């Protein structure tokens, strides 16, 4: 996935001279995750810029650059390091189009490596999507596959609206049969994709939890449960149609994400499913999420992150009756 993201940045820089990559360590080092590897060498320091270490300054400067017609792609090094830029994001980035009645749209992509599972110490494993998706004016996107990493990032950079692009860092090293020469076409931002069809119940998930859900669906076959898996890909816009259609077909749904459950994305999704599919539901919509605790230290994180067993337990609580 890391290579696909690098290729997406590379192709975007080559295709459009207004695209600029910026952030701490993105230049000579190529980013701490090497997502920007070689970009400064190939496109110059002005197109891929090592900035001072200051997230509000990085995003604030990107606002001004976008006001002048550039398309900044900002890297926040880790999820929790993005918080100093939160005011710029919610007070300016998200609302500039709105407050200027469309005169100043801001085509900024904010790349944030997020989530746990890589043994990071404190402040390196947060899942911050709920903060962003609550802010009107932002798109919030998270790829779970290598194809999506490339396709969604290209779409995010091409978008005339700001996009918070959440990169599941534990999937950086995931592999797929993917060719940088011929990247596959992917559905646009705002479209969910059914990754696995299943008639018994539906797991609804995104980003780092997709592989876990696919594994759970495979394991569920032993119980005789036929689970489908929906990958949201984009939290804003939220593809309510696809989700509602799939859940109406199965009558049972579990929303899975690793960030804390309380007030999280799963709460919103479960509420919407209930509003739209109530008469089709055989069971309440359940959530499997991280605990409502500050992200735990790495030696304990496996207890916090929703795994296959916890997902299967929830599926079991759907009062399973075949047919």
């Amino acid at each position, binding site marked *: 996935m890391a290579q696909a993201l690098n290729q997406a940045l590379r192709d975007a820089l080559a295709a459009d001279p207004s695209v600029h990559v910026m952030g701490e360590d993105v230049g000579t080092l190529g980013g701490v995750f090497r997502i920007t590897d070689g970009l400064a060498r190939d496109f110059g320091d002005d197109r891929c810029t090592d900035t001072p270490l200051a997230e509000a300054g990085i995003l604030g*400067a990107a606002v001004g650059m976008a006001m002048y017609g550039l398309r900044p792609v900002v890297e926040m090094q880790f999820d929790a390091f993005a918080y100093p830029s939160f005011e710029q994001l919610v007070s300016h980035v998200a609302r500039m189009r709105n407050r200027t009645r469309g005169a100043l749209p801001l085509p900024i992509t904010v790349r944030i490596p997020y989530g746990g599972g890589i043994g990071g110490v404190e402040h390196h494993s947060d899942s911050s999507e709920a903060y962003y998706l609550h802010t009107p004016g932002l798109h919030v996107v998270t790829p779970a596959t290598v194809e999506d990493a490339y396709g969604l990032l290209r779409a995010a950079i091409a978008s005339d609206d700001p996009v918070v692009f959440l990169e599941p860092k534990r999937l950086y090293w995931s592999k797929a049969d993917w060719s940088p020469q011929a990247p596959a076409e992917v559905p646009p931002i705002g479209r969910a994709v059914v990754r696995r069809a299943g008639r018994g119940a539906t797991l609804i998930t995104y980003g780092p939890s997709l592989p876990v859900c696919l594994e759970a669906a495979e394991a569920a076959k032993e119980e005789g449960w036929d689970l489908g898996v929906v990958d949201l890909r984009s939290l804003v816009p939220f593809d309510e149609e696809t989700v509602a259609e799939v859940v109406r077909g199965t009558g049972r749904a579990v929303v899975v994400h690793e960030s804390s459950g309380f007030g999280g994305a799963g709460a919103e999704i479960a509420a919407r499913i209930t509003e739209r599919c109530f008469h089709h539901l055989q069971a309440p919509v359940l959530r499997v999420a991280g605990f409502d605790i500050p992200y735990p230290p790495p030696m304990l994180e496996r207890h916090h992150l929703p795994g296959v067993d916890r997902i299967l337990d929830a599926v079991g609580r759907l009062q399973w009756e075949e047919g």
Partner: protein
Amino acid sequence: MTVLDTPAWRPRTEAGPLLPDQEPFRLLGTPEAARLAPDLLTRLYAQLVRGRRFNRQATALTKQGRLAVYPSSTGQEACEVAAALALGPRDWLFPSYRDTLAVVARGVDPVEALTLLRGDWHTGYDPRAARVAPLSTPLSTQLPHAVGLAHAARLSGDDVAALAMVGDGGTSEGDFHEALNFAAVWKAPVVFLVQNNGFAISVPLAKQSAAPTFAHKAVGYGMPGRLVDGNDAAAVHQVLTEAVDRARAGQGPTLVEAVTYRIDAHTNADDATRYRDQDEVATWRAHDPITLLEGELTGRGLLDDALRQRAAEDAEALAADLRTRMHDDPPLDPADLFAHVYAEPTPQLREQAAMLGAELEAEQRS
């Protein structure tokens, strides 16, 4: 090689030339003022008089309920006017919420400049057409924007500078620091103007900063700091013009502290008698920017009745126009609520727009 030869030890800039003057720079009433072009002085004068009248009219409009709130810049008009006049047509202005006057002096329609404070929308003008960023309510957050825009202009090979305005309170914000640091490292063509008016709402200077002056803060970032009498319109204009020229010449940013005073309260909703001494206000009233400039114009024989009358009539016409146009209720379209959130509304927003449409129809029927 010793450690003293390594980059970590070597000074990156010479601190000496960056230090501000000991006292605020003044022009009016000094021998140097004789070199000032009469045309510049009369233009500044006309804008000051207009600005003073604008502040008074806008404050009156709050009492009539025609403006939700107005943060007056009475006493600070010289900074506002000089800011606008120091910029070229392609330059950008990044105002704070108190800088409506600079926005108007830059050529934006006064009613459009007041849209935010009237409450009919957030920004009434097209920032790109006016080359004026939206009035920023959060403190200092517009400063990094000015840096980014100036940087982008330079990358594009354009001869464009940005001027960003902030108050003394705003210098305590993190974004102030980050903006100055970015600007200096990038050598961005940007000028920061701190209007030090003595108070952040009620908090006085002594509780805001322990720096000798705000201009001194520039040295730590590696840019020059200039200290100027903010009520001396000619001095502010000259210092800002030099800073803008310096930016254009690729020499990087400048921090200018204009020492001035907020004669009115923070906004019409504030009671300034609770936190400041009226003798202090009187002292500053005596150091009024209009009076100072009138003294100079009179001394040079430039202030005749005709000029005085022209300036007064122009100011009255502005006030009358404001009264008339602000008296009408602004045309509001509730559909605008959903029109400018995203390039393409999300399915959820389409649904909500339809719901509001139905509510409005029902309202009309009843």
